């Protein structure tokens, strides 16, 4: 029995099934990357979990069937939406509401905001909707991370963040060991270093549920060969850091822990235009 058990979850809009008999279990400690194309049902799944939508099927929290939008259940979930809402309230008021109404820790909010590169005292009086897209996202992430919750739901959380803030955000999430995470992202490479499970959705169904951590525990290594069209010192240095060896600067060979596959693919995707040859052998076939 998982922390959250979803059984036969269906959601229809005008006869079109956006979630189709979806069954899924989220364990405590799961850090899940939820991927899939537009319309796959990721946001709808979040909205069902948060009780925003009516649905068919069952969602259980710790084995108990939860009523739709159960306040006790919501107090254990933090959420960051895909698009920051245009709230008119000043930032200070939002933080105060999060503190009094959802138990966000004031000191932790200040620390997290600082790490993300925003000064809460500076923007406290500003209406939330007047902040830049990145600032809004940072405030929402700050509120979510300052809450003591069991599950964090992030819908494209890094979409508006600059690269530096994105890196800090990933570090902050990585450091948060106590909560499970469900992170929707179009860019798997972005959240790859963070997650131990990847779920891909397509047309309201789970089409891939890959638990990376199991293979990591088993100590499996994958053999990898990479061929470049031309030498590239930066990429070569990065591969050397991963323990790869090369004889001519264009062909590299090495072994990566299977559990780090996603993180590794995230790295090499940045140099995709240089890559002529790529082979990754898990040794299974």
């Amino acid at each position, binding site marked *: 029995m998982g922390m959250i058990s979803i059984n036969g979850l269906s959601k229809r809009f005008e006869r079109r099934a956006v979630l189709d008999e979806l069954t899924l279990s989220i364990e405590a400690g799961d850090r899940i990357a939820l991927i899939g194309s537009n319309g796959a049902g990721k946001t709808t799944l979040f909205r069902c979990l948060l009780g925003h939508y009516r649905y068919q099927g069952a969602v259980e929290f710790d084995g108990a069937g939860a009523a739709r939008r159960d306040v006790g259940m919501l107090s254990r979930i933090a959420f960051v*939406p895909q698009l920051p809402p245009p*709230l008119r309230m000043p930032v200070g008021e939002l933080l105060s509401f999060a503190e009094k109404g959802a138990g966000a820790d004031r000191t932790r909010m200040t620390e997290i905001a600082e790490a993300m590169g925003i000064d809460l005292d500076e923007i406290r009086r500003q*209406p939330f909707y007047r902040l830049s897209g990145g600032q809004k996202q940072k405030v929402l992430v700050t509120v979510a991370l300052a809450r003591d919750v069991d599950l964090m739901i992030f819908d494209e959380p890094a979409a508006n963040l600059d690269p530096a803030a994105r890196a800090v955000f990933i570090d902050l999430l990585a450091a948060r060991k106590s909560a499970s995470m469900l992170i929707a992202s179009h860019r798997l490479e972005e959240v790859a270093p963070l997650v131990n499970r990847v779920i891909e959705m397509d047309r309201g169904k789970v089409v891939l549920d890959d638990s990376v951590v199991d293979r990591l525990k088993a100590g499996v290594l994958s053999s990898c060969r990479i061929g470049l069209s031309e030498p590239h010192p930066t990429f070569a240095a990065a591969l050397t850091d991963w323990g790869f060896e090369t004889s001519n600067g264009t062909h590299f060979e090495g072994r990566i822990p299977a559990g780090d596959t996603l993180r590794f693919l995230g790295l090499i995707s940045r140099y995709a235009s240089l890559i002529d040859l790529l082979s990754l052998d898990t040794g299974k076939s």
Partner: protein
Amino acid sequence: MTQSPRARFGLMLRLELQESLRSRWFHFYALVAVGLMVLLIFTGVSESRVLGFTGLSRLLVTYIQITMAVLPLFIIVATARSMVGDREAGNLEYMLAFPVSLRTWFWGRFVARLVLILAPVLVALAIAAVFGAIKGHEIPWRHVSLYSGLTAALATCFLGLGFLLSAVSRSTEVALGASLMIWLVLVALLDLLLLSVLIKAQFVPEFVIGIALANPLQSFRTASMILFDPQLILLGPASYVILDTFGETGYVLWALSYPTLLGLAFAGLGYWRFTKSDLV
């Protein structure tokens, strides 16, 4: 994190009060409600005499007539679009992810808005009373307090209707269109307009009286005029019939209780619909 339902309600109430105090609709509404009274005072309405009304009574009668047209329209339009607008903008998606019950959320907003809608009218009445005292006019305290009660009843009614429209409408356009349509129908059914036509066309009196009683605008209009014009000389034929049937006290009680209960019923229906449908 444990918080009593009362504390959560207080939190929600405060949030909505602050949110509304910042909003343009409230600034404009407060300006109109208070500004009208100030305008009437400065134009010397209280010094004129029309059909026996003068002094503060004349001022209040004029204010009442304008309020009856303006107040419901403001309330229903501003309220109907509020929740739909929040849904369309994505505010509901975020705010309803916090652990606040829908009951606290909905009724906290309702009470906060009721307080804010009544505040400018009460301020306007207080200004009138102060003006009357300075000018040495006799202050009709019974009228002022009953008028406050009638305004609160009318405000509750249209606020409830606004919340219902907001809960059932899927877009701001639909909510706005429906609220304007309802307001127009209710204005058209006042005894000045359609009811007079119905009586002239010799409709069954019970039918006409039924419409007049069911229309909260008509209830407000008749009851507020009873205070100043017990014979209802200024009003149309439906009011005569109503007065004959109910008597002054009976009708004032009806005009206080019926719109209030109707508004609460509308709001209750809106809450039920809100909880039974998709929230975003």
